[in-house]
C-alpha cells in the first residue's frame, strides 16, 4: 500500500510559478505524480507552463480540484502561512521543502494543526516508488518494492537508495524528514505508519549525529517492531569538529546525540548499524532472509 502517498493522492504545489516550484512540478509530473494545480496569489486563472491551473488561494484550489496533498516551495517567511492556509482549507497532508523556516513558526504550526501530517520543513520530500513523488528526490533511482526508508539527510538518502535499488531491493515509501529543530514528522511517526503498512517488509533508518531522533526510533523498534528486519546507518561519524550540540536540548532527552549513543541504542534494539551506506543492502538482505 505504501505510506502517506499513493498514485491517487491529488497534489497541489504552493509557489508553483516560482523558479524551484515550477521546475520540480515538471519533474514530479514526469514521475507520474497526480498534480492537479497550484497556488500563487495574484496569478489565479492563469495556466502554468505545464498546463496546470493556478489559483489565488488554497481554498479555491481545493474546491476546484479536490486536492488532498500540499507541496510547499514558498520562501521561509511564508511557509507557516502556507501551512495554516492549507489547514483551514481542510488539507491534512503537507510537504514543506522550504529551508530556513523560523523555529517558532514551526512550534506554532505543529501546536495548532492537530491531525495534519507535515513532512519537513527543510526536507527533500517523500516518494512511493512507482506511484507518486512529492518534493525534489530524483525519481529514477528508486524502484518499487518492500523496503521502507526514513532519513534526516537529503543527498545521503539518495546514496542509500541507489545501493538498495542496485541490489534489487525496491522501496515502499522513502521519507526525508528534514534536519530542523522542529519538524512535523519524526522517525517514530514514520515507523508507526510502516508498522501498519502491508507493503513494507523491511526498514532502513538513515540517521545522523546530534539530537535524539535515532535513540527514540531505537526505543520504538524495541517496543513495537521486534520482528521487522531493520538496518540503521548513522552519518557523520567522521564529522568535522565545531558543530556544537545544544545544551538544554541534550539534557531534555538525557543523551548527547553522539554517534556512540545512537549506535548503542540501535544495537540494544537488535538493529545492526551499517559501517557505510554500501553495506546496507547486504545487511538488510540477510535480515530479510532470516525472517
Amino acid at each position, binding site marked *: 500500500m505504501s505510506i502517506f502517498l499513493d498514485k491517487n493522492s491529488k497534489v497541489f504545489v504552493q509557489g508553483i510559478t516560482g523558479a524551484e516550484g515550477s521546475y520540480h512540478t515538471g519533474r514530479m509530473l514526469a514521475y507520474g505524480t497526480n498534480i492537479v494545480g497550484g497556488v500563487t496569489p495574484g496569478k489565479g486563472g492563469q495556466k502554468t507552463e505545464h498546463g496546470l491551473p493556478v489559483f489565488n488561494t488554497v481554498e479555491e484550489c481545493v474546491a476546484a480540484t479536490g486536492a488532498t496533498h500540499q507541496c510547499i516551495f514558498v520562501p521561509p517567511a511564508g511557509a507557516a502561512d502556507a501551512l495554516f492556509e492549507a489547514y483551514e482549507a481542510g488539507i491534512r497532508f503537507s510537504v514543506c521543502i522550504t529551508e*530556513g523556516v523560523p*523555529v*517558532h513558526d514551526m512550534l506554532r504550526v505543529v501546536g495548532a494543526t492537530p491531525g495534519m501530517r507535515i513532512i519537513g520543513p527543510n526536507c527533500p520530500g517523500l516518494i512511493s516508488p512507482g506511484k507518486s513523488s512529492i518534493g525534489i528526490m530524483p525519481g529514477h533511482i528508486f524502484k518499487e518494492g518492500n523496503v521502507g526508508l526514513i532519513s534526516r539527510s537529503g543527498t*545521503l538518502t539518495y546514496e542509500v537508495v541507489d545501493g538498495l535499488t542496485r541490489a534489487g531491493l525496491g522501496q515502499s515509501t522513502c521519507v526525508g524528514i528534514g534536519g530542523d529543530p522542529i519538524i512535523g514528522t519524526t522517525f517514530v511517526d514514520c515507523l508507526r505508519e510502516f508498522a501498519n503498512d502491508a507493503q513494507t517488509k523491511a526498514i532502513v533508518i538513515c540517521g545522523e549525529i546530534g*539530537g535524539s531522533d535515532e535513540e527514540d526510533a531505537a526505543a520504538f523498534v524495541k517496543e513495537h517492531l521486534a520482528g521487522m528486519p531493520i538496518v540503521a546507518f548513522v552519518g557523520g561519524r*567522521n564529522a568535522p569538529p565545531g558543530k556544537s550540540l545544544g*545544551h538544554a536540548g541534550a539534557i531534555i532527552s538525557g543523551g548527547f546525540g553522539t554517534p556512540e549513543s545512537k549506535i548503542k541504542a540501535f544495537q540494544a534494539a537488535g538493529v545492526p548499524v551499517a559501517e*557505510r551506506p554500501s553495506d546496507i543492502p547486504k545487511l538488510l538482505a540477510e535480515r530479510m532472509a532470516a525472517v
Partner: protein
Amino acid sequence: MNLMEYQGKELFRRSGIPVPRSQHCTTPDEVAAFIEQNPGKWVVKAQVLMGGRGKAGKIKFATNADEGRKVAQEIMATPMPPNRQNPNGEAIKSLLVEETLDVALEAYCAISVDRTTKKPAVIVTKFGGMDVEEVHDKHPESFSTFFVDTAIGYSPFIGRKLAFSTDLDPGYRKQFPAILAGMYELFFAYGAKLVEINPLVLTKDGRVIAADAKVELDDDALFRHPEFKQWQTVLPLDEDETLATDAGLGIRNFRRFGGTVGTMANGAGLAMGTMDAVKNAGGEIANFLDVGGGANAERVRKCYELVVNHTNAKVFFINIFGGITRGDEVAKGIVEALNTTKSRKIPLVIRLTGTNEVEGRRILAEAGMTPVETMDEGAKRAVELAAVSS
C-alpha cells in the same frame, strides 16, 4: 545567533526578569569612572560568547576605581584561551561591571525547544552555578521538565509545579513563577531558541536574581527583528573558515585534514559519507567540502581552486548526487573550471548521478572525462591515483 551576557540581561530587563545593577563598559577608564561615582564592591566580567570565563580568570572583583581599572586591564590584556570548539579563543572587547550578590543558593532554569515532543521545554534544577552537563552527571534526578502547550502558553502553575518537583528552596517560590513568565515572554517575543539562567541566585536577603544570561536567537527569524543585527558578534574566522568564505561557501562547509585525497560533495551528509568512503578505501582525506545545493559553474570552479591550491590533495574526488542540484550544471562547472583555471591540474575522479545525470555525463564525455558509477568505486580509484601520484 548567541547573545553576550549584557545583551541577554538587557532583554531580561525588558521582560521584567530581575538582574543585578550593572554598567556595560568598553575601556578600563570607563570601569574606573563608573566605580568612582558608584562606590561599593563590584564584579568585572569579560563579555564573550565562549564559556569558562571564571576558570580563565576573566571575572574579577574590585572595591575602588583604581582596582577596577587594574582588573579591567588584566582581563582585557589577553583573549579567552582557545578550546576545542573555539580554536582561536576570543578577544575581549567589553566588560560588564556588576553589583556583587550575597549568594545563599544557586539554581538553574532554561527554556528551549524539544524536537521529540515538538514543544517548548522548561527545564529547572535546584543545582546551578556549574556547567549544566556537570549537573546532569552528578544529579540527574534533580531535573524537572515541563513541555509547554503553545495553545495554553505560560500559566503560573507551571512555575509552581517545577519549583516543587525539583525541591527548589522555599525562598525562591514566591518570585519564581514571575521570573519564568518573563523568560517565557522573552522566548516568544523574540523567537529565541534558548533562554537560560545559570545561576538563578537566591540572595541572603531573600531576592531572586538572574546572575547570568544566555540567550540564543534564531538566525532564521532575524528578519523579524532587524534591530538585533547590530548586536551580532562576529568572531574572527580561522584559516579554513576564511578560505570557505572566500570561495563563496558557508563557514562550516570546508575543513582540511592534511591527507592526499581531496573531496567535494553536495550536501553535508554525502560529504561526510564521501570522507568515510575514502577512509574505508585506505586513503587519507585532504578535506571536507560541502558545495551545497544548486552548485553552478562558478561555484564549482572556486571549489576546485580551493582544493587544488590550499590542500595537500594529489587527486580530487567529486561526488555529486543530484536532487535539487542538477548534474548538467555541475558538469558544465567542472569543464569550465578546468578550462578557465590558472591553477595546477590534478587528476579528477568524478561520480555524477541523480537529477539530469545523462546530460551531465554527456558534457563530461565530450570533454574527455569518464565518470565512475558508485561512491565506493570512486573512492577506490581516487585512493589508487593518490598513491601513484606520490
